[in-house]
């Protein structure tokens, strides 16, 4: 199945945000992640993809199934844009801080929803946010 490999969703409108989270949920369902984890993943994607349309206008969301050394599977989400970047990442990850019109829950909220969270950004250099949700029980590889 195509979606069990990498999948790239261009993000340029609020409709694309919905498509990205629906594809991710379908991928998570195929990996048999719990419905709670599917929802956490879809919600986190909604937050980081909205950041793309709000601050960078366009970008993309990449979805992949990954494995760790123990054979445990997870879904990795990379939200990538070439927008203005974030000057103060520490501040952007603080609850309630927003440079836009939001509540400032986007990045800190997304971080709480997933297992692994990483952000690479610099002013003028775009933003790359990586999220991972792992399956809960290690599988025998």
């Amino acid at each position, binding site marked *: 199945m195509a979606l069990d490999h990498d999948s790239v969703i261009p993000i340029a409108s609020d409709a694309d945000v919905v498509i990205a989270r629906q594809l991710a949920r379908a991928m998570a369902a195929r990996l048999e992640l719990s419905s709670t984890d599917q929802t956490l993943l*879809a919600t986190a994607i909604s937050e980081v993809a909205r950041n793309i349309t709000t601050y960078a206008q366009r970008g993309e969301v990449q979805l992949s199934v990954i494995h760790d050394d123990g054979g445990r599977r997870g879904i990795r989400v990379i939200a990538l844009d070439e927008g203005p970047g974030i000057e103060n990442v520490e501040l952007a990850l603080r609850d309630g801080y927003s440079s836009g019109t939001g509540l400032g829950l986007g990045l800190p909220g997304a971080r709480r929803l997933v297992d692994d969270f990483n952000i690479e950004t610099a002013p003028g250099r775009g933003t790359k946010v990586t999220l991972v949700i792992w399956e809960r029980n290690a599988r025998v590889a």
Partner: protein
Amino acid sequence: MAVPILKQGPFLIATIQAALTDTDVLQLQDDVMAQVTRHRSRGIIVDVTALDVMDSFVSRSLQGIARMTRLRGATTVIVGIQPEVAFAMVQLGMAFEDVLTALDLEEGLALLTRPRKEAVDGGA
């Protein structure tokens, strides 16, 4: 996709039927305010049973509907938040502390038809 809003006596019932884009959510806010004004509604129920994601934007917009309609003297109840969605909302930091909620449409209507004082003070 536009959210249909049904008038039921002194109440409005907005039933979300599919995933909402941010544009749809803003439209819903406008539509509810317009109809509350037109019909002088006393209560509004927003049924979110069909939503499998309530991110910070949707949550904030529904909270906005509740606050705006309260200023018009009407009470809004959000009904049908799915268990997984509730879990994600709390993680996200959207606990809806000042918004009335009920399990489903029936419970929401019961909340609205309670004596007025109780319904208004219920979530505050």
